[in-house]
């Protein structure tokens, strides 16, 4: 037991700050960029998945985001955090792809939710309640459809603000909008979602 406590108090190396990693990349140390990718791949994937609405497009958008970030990192001037800058690239990449999309993607209700997504489903309370579990599944499908159905300008605000949990100020920097504009789009987006989800609430 004493041995276990000793292990617990062992000093842990602090992670290298993002800005320092960026400086290393700018100095030609490509492995520092790999560390930035490892640090943010999940966050970026979640944003682009929620914006694009399907795994294939999200995979492409995530790839484009990191490649663009790498190509332009030399021009990064530390005026914002690396994270804000990366989210801006991810959002712009996704919105450009969405606008280029000729017709909306129609998701089959029978289609699996997607590789990896079921792993993230944390519903222990419903483990022994199939009815609630099914309702939760229906709700997730309805939620995804509702978010996918929002116009891109509203969707980007709802995804960043409510699903990714960023502040109004962070969203305003990423989308280059005023805070009142973020709030207004958020309100309209939430109203639209509420309408779609009304039957499940």
């Amino acid at each position, binding site marked *: 037991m004493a041995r276990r406590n000793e292990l617990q108090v062992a000093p842990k190396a602090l992670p290298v700050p993002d800005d320092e990693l960026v400086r290393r990349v700018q100095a*030609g140390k*490509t492995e520092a*960029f*790999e560390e930035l*990718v490892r640090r943010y*791949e*999940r*966050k970026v*994937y*979640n944003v682009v*998945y929620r914006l694009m609405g399907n*795994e294939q497009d*999200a*995979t492409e958008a*995530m*790839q484009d985001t*990191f*490649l663009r970030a*790498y*190509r332009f990192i030399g021009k990064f001037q530390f005026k914002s955090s690396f994270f804000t800058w990366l989210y801006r690239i991810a959002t712009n990449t996704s919105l450009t792809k969405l606008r280029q999309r000729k017709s909306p993607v129609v998701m089959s209700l029978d289609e699996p939710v*997607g*590789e*990896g*997504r079921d*792993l*993230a*489903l*944390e519903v222990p309370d419903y483990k022994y309640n199939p009815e609630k579990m099914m309702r939760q599944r229906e*709700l*997730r499908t309805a*939620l995804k459809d509702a*978010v996918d159905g929002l*116009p891109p300008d*509203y969707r980007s605000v709802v995804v960043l603000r*409510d*699903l990714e*949990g960023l502040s*109004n100020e962070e969203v305003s920097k990423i989308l280059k909008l005023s805070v009142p504009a973020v*709030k207004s789009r*958020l*309100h*309209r987006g*939430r*109203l*639209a*979602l*509420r*309408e779609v*989800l*009304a039957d*499940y*609430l």
Partner: protein
Amino acid sequence: MDEPDSDVSNCPECVEFARLVTDYLDGDATIEVRQELMLHVHLCPHCARLLWGLERTIECYRSESSCEVPASARRQLWEALMRELRGDEQED
């Protein structure tokens, strides 16, 4: 989407409620504004329903956990990245 607030009545208090409800939901409203909104909700069943629906909607999608990057997506990303990074190293 042009008139998403069409289900809000034209009564000035309800219009004001709709204007301030986002701040309230995000915890950005002052105590005075919160009290004012709560008083209105007690008097107006329409806005009470609106608030309840919005709270439940937000609660519902905030409870969605984030997903892992699928293995195939991660593989494609790293393959593309390695090509890009190695390309740079070779140029050096």
